[in-house]
């Protein structure tokens, strides 16, 4: 059981990270860099609500 759980965790960790994760961070960065920019803020909010 322990080996199977370890393998399960390892497989999940090695799954390729979808692009939308990094896109989310980019949008959060943009929102922080331009707090007055409604588009950047809205994008970040959309991602949080997704």
């Amino acid at each position: 059981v322990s080996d199977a759980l370890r393998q399960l965790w390892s497989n999940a960790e090695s799954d390729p990270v979808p692009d939308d994760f990094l896109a989310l961070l980019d949008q959060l960065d943009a929102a922080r860099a331009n707090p007055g920019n409604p588009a950047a803020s809205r994008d970040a909010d959309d991602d949080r609500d997704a």
Partner: protein
Amino acid sequence: VTSSPNPLDDRAFRENLVAIIPSLRAFARGLCGSRDLADDLAQEALAKAWAARDSFTAGTNFKAWIFRILRNHFYTTANVARRFVLMDPHTTVDLVSVAPTQGAERIRHDIEAGLAALPPPQREALMLVESGLQWDEIAAIADCPIGTIKSRITRGRAALRLYLEGPPPETPVAAGLSQRA
């Protein structure tokens, strides 16, 4: 949320976030089963961590900090909005839709289905212990004593073993008693 005396700068914080994504997804998948919902959960935890970055103290365990954020968000959302439905082996489509017939894939399928059948606290403890965190960090994430975590892991592993191997065969004596009953 308290202010950190020594917060990371944004670039270092972002590097930590990027590095933790695979582990965050693994923990989320263990908690809620469905891969799509797990990725939603992980992304929301990322956004929450970013919003709360000033509360992270440099030099402390970033993985434990963000795992706690994800875990709390999971339970809050599951209990309040029922969005991340607590895993049920009969409804976790991603995990049990196609049953492979042999090999490592079969073992993975069975262990995921077995996990889905466990109470969430046991599932959570079993996944956290595979994450490489220390006992005290796991206990802090799950908000309970270390002894409780160890007990959940012991019971969870026993339940998984029973799920994978089935109940022990009846002994002749027990079978005889059963027939007479």
